[in-house]
């Protein structure tokens, strides 16, 4: 099969970009979308053209590095998979496929389809951690965790931090990402000591980065390669409200966080 690619090309953040259209060489329908880009890049290189820059790493849906908005939907046409697990058999021979980078003010384009997602890292640095001594694994049964809490925490922990939620949201809101991270730790006993300080710190870093707010359209959940639920945003909203009532962080320098 062959397709026509309409791809965003941009030299760097300072240079304005534009769409370029390429006819691909012959492709195998069982190639992943990224493998297709590899083939196109090989072809561009042999023709002396600049290959298309795109993000990728594990290519098995677990690292969250691949991105791309394909025909208007982050990670392509299917639900619950990342771009690296999107295959050409989901498209038809001769299709024109529109490929754009994730668009959000906090995600400036680095080159072509690669955007800078460090804003998400800074949100993690603000509170996405627990302060425990590491290195020696404690006896697992010394800290009982209810099955329901463990399951829910695992669902939240499935977030690979790709930023598709931001890309899909009409408000470029990162709330699904932040909610998943807040919930993953906040549901487990090890996350309790910093639970309320964490939610305040992460939400406020999210605001400082310039992400939009949630209007509950559900696009994030619908495009999430890990199908993270909107319910986690409600959970984050609840924790933040409780933190406000507790006066967490009201006075800088004085940790007011109280475990639940």
């Amino acid at each position: 099969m062959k397709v026509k690619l309409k791809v965003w090309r941009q030299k760097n953040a300072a240079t304005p970009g534009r769409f370029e259209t390429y006819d691909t060489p012959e492709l195998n329908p069982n190639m992943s979308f990224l493998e297709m880009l590899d083939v196109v890049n090989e072809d561009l290189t042999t023709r002396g053209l600049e290959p298309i820059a795109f993000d990728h790493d594990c290519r098995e849906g677990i690292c969250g590095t691949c991105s791309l908005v394909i025909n208007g939907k982050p990670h392509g046409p299917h639900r619950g998979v990342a771009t690296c697990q999107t295959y050409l058999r989901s498209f038809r021979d001769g299709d024109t496929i529109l490929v754009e980078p994730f668009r959000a003010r906090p995600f400036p384009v680095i080159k072509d389809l690669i955007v800078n997602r460090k804003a998400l890292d800074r949100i993690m640095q603000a509170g996405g951690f627990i302060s425990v001594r590491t290195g020696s694994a404690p006896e697992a049964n010394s800290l009982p965790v209810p099955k329901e809490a463990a399951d829910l925490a695992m669902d939240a922990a499935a977030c690979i931090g790709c930023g598709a939620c931001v890309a899909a949201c009409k408000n470029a809101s990162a709330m699904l990402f932040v909610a998943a991270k807040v919930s993953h730790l906040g549901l487990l006993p090890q996350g309790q000591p910093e639970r309320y300080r964490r939610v305040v710190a992460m939400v406020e870093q999210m605001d400082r980065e310039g992400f939009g707010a949630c209007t509950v359209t559900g696009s994030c959940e619908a495009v999430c390669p890990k199908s993270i639920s909107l319910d986690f945003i409600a959970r984050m909203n609840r924790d933040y409200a409780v933190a406000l009532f507790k006066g967490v962080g009201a006075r800088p320098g004085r940790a007011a966080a109280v475990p639940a």
Partner: protein
Amino acid sequence: MSAWIRLLRSSLGLKYLMAGSGLVLVGFVCGHLVGNLQFFLPPPVINRYAHFLQSNPELLWGVRLILLVLVGVHIGTALRLWALNRAARPQPYASPATAYGSTLASRTMLLSGLMVAAFVLYHLLHYTVKVESLNGTPLAFHQLREPATGHADVFAMMVAGFRVWPVSLFYAVGIALLCLHLSHGVAAMFQSLGLRNPVYAPLIQRLARLLAVVLLVGYLSIPAAVLLGRGQNYLRRVVEHTAAALAPTPANPPAAH
């Protein structure tokens, strides 16, 4: 930062304000419907209710003031969040596809909200302030008096108002927009306030839709009933009585009831 500043500055704080004001406004919309449905009882019932409200100005103005402030908070936070959300995506996508997985109601909240605001303004001028030039009928709403008591006749006013079909149509559009707004807004409100979990989430979505449908049917039943003829005879009697009461002749024959 104090909790108050957080409430006004953070995106979540603004969402609490929007949801909290929305909650009270929804409560009002439900209560207002119950009050209005007295239209289906004999005319003196709703007139007595209206007279009760009118004769308690402290209560009436207290509630009005609260609602007005909340509408201000609701619109203010809506616009502030809209500005932040727009700024968060300076470069739009080239793809014409709409936000994947979203409903029409959720995408058009600001638009439906602002149109509801315009409708509410008209509604207030029409039935509360009673700007006679807006009612599309030569009947003067100010002059409609209940024959038995001489109090303002709200029942007759509703009949006189909704008898004008373009007015009824305008109300239908306004109410439909409000219900579109609430079909998403009520569910979003639970979400914003954190009152949602995997067990109740589907229930909340259904509750929001059900409430929107109940409000739609409830509110529209009144203009529909008027257009189908309810209260026409009563209105005629009130108009005759009013005309007789206003007639300059001292030898006024008592109006026949």
